[in-house]
């Protein structure tokens, strides 16, 4: 025994939590929405998800090799990025375009900054923003049941008619939209799972959606249902505004972040040139994360002086 005694700092026991475990749970939470995507949009949806994930893993592996780093693909975070990117694209996106987006997301959204933990922006959203700016036509065309239609949000934005999708279909997800963002119900399953596993802050998605709801109610109450259920709001609120790396750390900071995202989303939707604002609003708020962190330091134990209590 004497010769192989290990000396290490306390604590000598560790929890079972790990980065890969967290990412695996996120992937599990994303499964229902993925199944829904394949049901609504057919096998093309599956191909988009597959392409995006595979390219994401290969890109990270490529950077690891190039920089002679320890392999980081085993923490599964690149797959989460790949899947999230796929979920934010229409099912008709050409696969080469998906691959380019996924490569850009991993390499320029994450690895150039030093990999997981150091990226200032949500990599999936970086990829999505890159594709939206570079290929606006392809990213803006949506097909459901073989017919090309505009998303409910685009219809309202460009005033090319009234929204024909009823609230039931909005909730189930049976309408033209990006892959994974359609079904509120399936996304909420993922939300419940992540909250149950204590990986995300319960209140962030709630505050995000509430903010959007309140602002939409004031500006355009007749289309409230579309603004809340008809776009990428739930996908963004549940899986992107809660991304640990790119959002503030303190509970208060997280709420500020969520409200900020909600306000920016509405500003872009109502007064900007894009019909959808979730992607850019979260990216803009990512930019503010360090400042929010600076101003929301948690009040430590004993910093609130007690009034002398009677015994």
């Amino acid at each position, binding site marked *: 025994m004497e010769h192989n005694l290990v000396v290490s700092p306390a*604590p000598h026991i*560790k929890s079972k939590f790990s980065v890969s475990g967290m990412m695996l749970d996120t992937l599990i939470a994303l499964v229902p929405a993925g199944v829904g995507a394949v049901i609504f949009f057919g096998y093309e949806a599956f191909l988009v998800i597959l392409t995006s994930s595979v390219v994401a893993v290969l890109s990270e592996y490529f950077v690891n090799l190039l920089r002679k780093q320890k392999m980081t693909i085993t923490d599964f975070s690149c797959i989460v990025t790949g899947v999230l990117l796929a979920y934010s694209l229409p099912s008709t996106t050409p696969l080469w375009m998906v691959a380019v987006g996924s490569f850009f997301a991993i390499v320029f959204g994450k690895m150039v900054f030093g*990999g*997981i933990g*150091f990226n200032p922006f949500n990599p999936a959203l970086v990829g999505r923003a890159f594709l939206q700016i570079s290929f606006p036509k392809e990213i803006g065309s949506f097909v459901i049941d073989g017919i090309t239609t505009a998303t409910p949000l685009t219809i309202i934005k460009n005033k090319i008619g009234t929204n024909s999708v009823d609230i039931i279909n909005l909730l189930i997800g049976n309408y033209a939209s990006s892959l994974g963002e359609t079904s509120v119900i399936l996304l909420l399953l993922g939300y419940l799972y992540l909250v149950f596993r204590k990986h995300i802050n319960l209140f962030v998605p709630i505050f995000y959606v509430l903010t959007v709801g309140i602002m939409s109610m004031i500006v355009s109450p007749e289309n409230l249902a579309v603004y809340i259920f008809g776009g990428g709001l739930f996908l963004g609120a549940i899986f992107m505004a809660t991304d640990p790396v790119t959002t503030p750390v303190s*509970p208060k900071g997280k709420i500020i972040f969520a409200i900020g995202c909600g306000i920016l989303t509405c500003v872009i939707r109502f007064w900007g040139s894009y019909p959808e604002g979730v992607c850019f609003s979260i990216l803009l708020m990512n930019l503010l994360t360090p400042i929010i962190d600076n101003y929301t*330091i948690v009040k430590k*134990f004993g910093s609130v002086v007690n009034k002398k209590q009677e015994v």
Partner: protein
Amino acid sequence: MKQFFGGIHPPENKISQHNSLEKIVLPQLVYLHLSQHTGKLAKPIVKQNDYVLIGQKVADYDGLISAAIHSPVSGKVLEFREILHPVIGKKSEAIVIENDGNNKTIDFKPKYKEYFRYDKVEIINAIKESGIVGLGGAMFPTHVKLSPKKEVEIVLLNGCECEPYLTCDDKLMQEHAREIVEGLKIIMYVLDAVRGIVVVEDNKKEAFKKMAGVVSRVPNVEIMSVKTKYPQGAEKQLIKTVLGKEIPSGGLPMDVGVVVQNVATSYAIYNAIINGIPLYERVITISGDVSRVGNFVVSIGTMVSDIIKKLNIGTSEINKIIFGGPMMGISVPTSEIPIIKGTSGILFIKDKIKDYSYGPCIRCCKCINVCPMRLMPNFLSIYTEYELWDKVKIFSPNDCIECGCCSYVCVSKRPIVNQIKFAKSKLRELK
């Protein structure tokens, strides 16, 4: 019931909870460290080749914050030698005494059986002469704690024992409930406190029952069961849970009119005042991945290697020895280290962690959610890593109680609490 913020629920692993107290036969040699307490080293009052008796004072307190040390054996003072210290982590001077096996004791004069007839200062002095320190692990000299500069109304008797594996306080409460409560009465008398509360975690049903039975017959003393949660036994968290008061940052329990004592300390005070026996032995838990576990009464100064031999502990597959519990205990490089007053347990662990490397912080906030001091361990960890001491200061590392919850939950396996300890010492240097 009020709760403190944060905390964790590690596997309890109280393997030895059904083992009754057993006395380990005195060893051949005892090694009494001169540093068995917070503060100045004790100063030896015996010379080489002196003959000492059980209970005889061999080293005296030196200065205000210090404590006396007594011999647990009768025999000859062999030498003064520098040996490894379990807490300091380097060699420190110790008195080596050879046990002649005659078990001759000094004449224990139980002078203060009716302690309430004596002056408080006299009782505190008797505690000082008995070399009693905080036996929960902090080893702060008890006589100093019992002479607070502020008025104290409440005494909390800490029977939480929130560290996994350890069961020594649990067993002590089960077998010596009366003596422990008697000790609490002495503490309350000395402090002029009007209320005593025994606090036991709700996983120690048997101990709670025994203590409640005794407490019910004592006026002004009550018992309270609190939720099992680590670090429930930490002073500040205990006061928050029981009384709902937060000790101001940088303050002491007496700032809110409270003194917290461990049950083992209370037992030692009872022994010193009622029986006149100074502190030279204590209860420790032997546990871990070994077949022989239990709660043992051992002489202070017993080598761990002697315990291994005496109890016939199979240690062939053991690769870690921990002084204390697994959350805050200290792992040692050899078994040639003696037990000191603050040692509450020795754990023999088969450590399966092969890789101590860690990844970057991914800001998952788990550490913020568990920190019982409501600090932001993630920032402390990152800024310490980059040695940005001005930034570290913003996040008050000195408020850290070093409970280790942050390291326990970290998904990237970062040694956060260790980094904070480093930051503390670095900031002290820079001052």
